[in-house]
């Protein structure tokens, strides 16, 4: 993308006129380019910001809510946890390796800009069918990019989720989350202050890569997707690793006022936001910026999204020590400007003035975008339609096989064995569980981490689907024994310029707010990715929720897999989905696999039911009652049983509860329905009475299903699969699909 094209971005004629009136003159091309990127959806949230104000952001443990590089919560004892999730969808669609890699790089910088040491990465990725060669290639290359960057910087990738659905064929989703730890007195902010202080740009040289990336991420794809390749940045994880270590060493260097990642919209955004937060101004001289290309214009320098750069504000007395620290790590630092009291961002190129803009106009002046919102015309019909369209219920064994082989329900080892999930020596439980667990040194406690997207019914039930993401994340934490602390979210939606897309966005934000308020979990950071749309076809609204929880004591935790033969298997939560509208099959994975359809009553979300079931499971794990625990989500009970059997190679034999009767539809819903607030747990027979007593206290139904043991998954009268065969379906789906796509 050229600078001129970037400038045209979201600024229409009326907006340009407003700018001219405010400035009392026509804006220069450099100024228009800067305004164009900062007023883009990606930087200014012009469409979503009024919605985001509805979200709960406060709480007793919140140290820093949205508005900084990352959110921060208090872990007690002067230790803070700093985390954020961000999308890199558009770049990954065009250049999967670099797009995904630089997504990881960007989210790392957001966290270490806060003074924290990054200790974990998680990723939520979505593609079309893996049997399609184009999708298979994109998926494999995104995994490669995530792994390459994370492995090289030495931060473990401990969790994530992978989803394949034709709905993401033209717009893949790549969301990366980073979690860091920092001592309270070392927390940094990105707030410039103190006129006379110096602005340093450190790290990589500045080139033409990524110019207009923020504007590019704020537009739908059309036929010329391939022409967008120059808007994608190129990563250098080696430089990033050196930046991380240098910034860690800065913790003890005096005189550092502010530290800021130089990410989307490059110097324009990082400098303008840092100055605006601090209520000051900045004078920059782009001639002082080290370049990797010749003859760059001031606008190109200001808009470049070259990676692995940080901006610091340093008191003059501290500059020498700061520069020496970067020098030791082989990183040069340029003094590119000074803090002023002007409230303006002034950019010159040597002696020539290139831009002089008031910061309130640049940062806070973007006009709000309020496009009309309207639900889809077929909403009522779609919600009312029978999930199975009146077809005969499928054979349960065959249905389970198809579910597992579709790639979304089984184990994603193919993905995470390519990620270093152990470096750092703190990973107690890595990928493959409901939530990852990292121990906290010197304490008998751990951090539990998960990312989860919403329910598949989101196109026609966006509010409940987004709430389901929050509830599922909280269940994942509860299933390891942890209590939620806070949420970071990534809102991935289609084009808000289409009324249905705007309605989906509004409903998705509302659903996130509903669920977080109901569970009392604050949202401390996040990111919005709109315009995930190609030629008028948007993705299903996809709220990806990253949740951080506290696990104490560390020894009292549970895993998914049945631990030993002879244990009692129980279902916690609503025992009979067929009692719910749609029987938990509307928008379910079973429906997708059987017919590709997406309709029918969406699963009911019930915050009270969720909260009490989660309390019960967490309490039972803390009391040492459970041998295993697993949240029920995609694919329902049948998939949860499969996970529990395959985890440690322990089979089980399950009896049908009497209330099910002989109706095949009811039995199908029981096996595959996706109703919330449920867990599959196992315990020693002697513990089952104590578990029931706890359940009575919480008023949560608990239904005994059967016993662990044997070498098959057997559901009496419905299905029996030997573990060896089940394991092949469960563990081999992704590799099998890629092989079918011609990528072994």
């Amino acid at each position, binding site marked *: 993308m050229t600078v001129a094209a970037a400038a045209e971005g979201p600024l229409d004629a009326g907006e340009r006129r407003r700018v001219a009136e405010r400035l009392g003159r026509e804006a220069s091309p450099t100024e228009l380019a800067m305004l164009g990127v900062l007023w883009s959806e990606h930087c200014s949230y012009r469409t979503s910001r009024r919605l985001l104000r509805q979200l709960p952001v406060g709480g007793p443990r919140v140290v820093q809510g949205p508005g900084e590089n990352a959110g921060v919560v208090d872990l007690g004892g002067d230790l803070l946890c700093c985390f954020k999730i961000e999308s890199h969808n558009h770049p990954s669609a065009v250049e999967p390796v670099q797009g995904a890699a630089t997504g990881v790089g960007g989210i790392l910088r957001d966290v270490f800009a806060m003074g924290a040491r990054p200790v974990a990465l998680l990723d939520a990725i979505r593609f079309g069918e893996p049997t399609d060669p184009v999708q298979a290639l994109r998926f494999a290359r995104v995994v490669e990019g995530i792994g*390459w960057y994370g492995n*090289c910087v030495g931060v473990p990738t401990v969790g994530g989720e992978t989803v394949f659905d034709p709905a993401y064929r033209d717009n893949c989703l790549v969301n990366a989350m980073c979690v860091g730890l920092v001592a309270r007195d070392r927390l940094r902010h990105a707030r410039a202050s103190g006129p006379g202080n110096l602005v340093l740009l450190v790290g990589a040289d500045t080139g033409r890569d990524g110019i207009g990336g923020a504007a590019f991420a704020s537009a739908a794809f059309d036929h010329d997707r391939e022409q967008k390749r120059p808007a994608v940045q190129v990563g250098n994880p*080696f430089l990033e*690793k050196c930046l991380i270590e240098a910034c860690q060493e800065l913790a003890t260097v005096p005189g550092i006022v502010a530290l800021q990642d130089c990410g989307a919209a490059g110097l324009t955004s990082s400098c303008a936001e840092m100055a605006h937060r601090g209520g000051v101004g900045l004078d920059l001289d782009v001639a002082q910026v080290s370049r990797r290309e010749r003859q760059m214009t001031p606008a190109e320098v200001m808009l470049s999204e070259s990676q692995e750069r940080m901006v610091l504000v340093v008191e003059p007395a501290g500059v020498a020590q700061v520069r020496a620290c970067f020098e030791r790590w082989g990183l040069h630092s340029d003094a590119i400007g000074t803090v002023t009291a002007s409230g303006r961002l002034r950019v010159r190129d040597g002696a020539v003035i290139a831009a002089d803009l008031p910061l309130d106009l640049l940062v806070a002046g973007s006009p709000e975008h309020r496009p009309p919102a309207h639900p889809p015309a077929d909403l009522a019909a779609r919600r009312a339609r029978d999930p199975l369209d009146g077809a005969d219920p499928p054979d349960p064994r065959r249905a389970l096989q198809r579910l597992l082989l579709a790639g979304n329900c089984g184990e994603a080892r193919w993905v995470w*064995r*390519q990620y270093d999930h*152990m*470096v750092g*020596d703190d990973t107690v439980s890595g990928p493959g569980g409901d939530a990852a667990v990292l121990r906290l040194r010197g304490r008998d406690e751990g951090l539990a981490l998960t990312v989860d997207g919403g329910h598949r019914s989101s196109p026609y039930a966006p509010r409940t689907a987004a709430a389901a993401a929050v509830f599922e994340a909280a269940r994942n934490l509860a299933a390891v024994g942890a209590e939620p602390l806070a949420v970071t979210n990534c809102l991935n939606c289609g084009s808000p310029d289409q009324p249905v897309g705007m309605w989906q966005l509004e409903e998705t934000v509302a659903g996130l707010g509903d669920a977080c308020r109901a569970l009392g979990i604050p949202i401390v950071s996040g990111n919005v990715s709109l315009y995930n749309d190609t030629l008028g076809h948007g993705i299903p609204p996809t709220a990806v929720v990253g949740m951080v929880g506290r696990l104490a004591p560390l020894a009292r935790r549970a895993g998914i897999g049945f631990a030993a033969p002879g244990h009692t298997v129980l279902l916690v939560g609503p025992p009979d989905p067929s009692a719910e509208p749609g029987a938990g099959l509307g928008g379910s994975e079973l429906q997708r696999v059987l017919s590709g359809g997406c309709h029918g009553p969406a699963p009911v979300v019930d915050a009270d039911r969720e909260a009490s079931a989660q309390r019960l499971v967490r309490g039972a794990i803390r009391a040492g009652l459970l041998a295993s625990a697993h949240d029920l989500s995609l694919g329902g009970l049948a998939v949860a049983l499969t996970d529990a059997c395959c985890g440690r190679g322990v089979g089980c034999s399950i009896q049908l509860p009497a209330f099910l009767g002989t109706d095949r539809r009811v039995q199908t819903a029981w096996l595959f329905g996706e109703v919330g607030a449920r867990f599959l747990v196992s315990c020693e027979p002697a513990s089952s009475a104590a578990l029931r007593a706890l359940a009575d206290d919480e008023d949560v139904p608990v239904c005994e299903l059967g016993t662990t043991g044997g070498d098959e998954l057997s559901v009496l009268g419905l299905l029996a699969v030997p573990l060896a065969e089940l394991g092949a379906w469960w563990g081999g789906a992704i590799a099998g699909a890629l092989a079918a796509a011609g990528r072994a």
Partner: protein
Amino acid sequence: MSRVRFGIVVFPGTWSDRDCAHAVAQAGYEAVRLWHDDRSLDGVDCVILPGGFSYGDYLRAGAIAAHARIMTAVRSFAAAGGPVLGICNGFQVLCEAGLLPGALLRNRSLQFRCEWTHLRVEGCPTRFTAGLPADRPLRIPISHGEGRYHADPETIAGLEASGRVVLRYVDAGGAVCDAANPNGSLHGIAGVASAGGNVVGMMPHPERACELVLGSADGLGLFRAVAGAEREPVGPR
């Protein structure tokens, strides 16, 4: 007994230095960092070249680090019989520096692999493997994209004959088999030693297996072996 000091070399891009320091502390010894641009080893008793992507692994894994200033001191230390352990990237550095034979090629899968492996301790007792249990495999994870050990047939035969293959990938029962070989290394070789038995390189990460809460404590033995053997060096036959 004097307190044993481990020197852990930090190149730009190294990342298992912190884990190695933690493991050394778990084993009960002192660890100091040695900077790639220094000339001195600061009088340490044992040198560890840790894992990571030194200098971004540009050119070839370990190739640039092999020429770092501190490697001059490491060579002298090794030549004098000092114990040197190269882990993962450190093993690649030792091969590039000519302190160990062979090379580490891209994994057979052409993908990065992070997973638990089982290792059989065999060959001559070295400074790091002497006294480790030979009756059961060690459970230690790998994490690398270029860990496929390779050398010409004569070199491999010589290593095997002289007992310098000291760690080999095996299955949980201790048997060598292709399924247990995570990267396609020739002969399932996971670690080799110098002729003097004081320099050992291995792709797996023992520093990640020093606490049961992380999944295994089998890695502690390597750090303890060298510390225990400090005063009475053992070498190959």
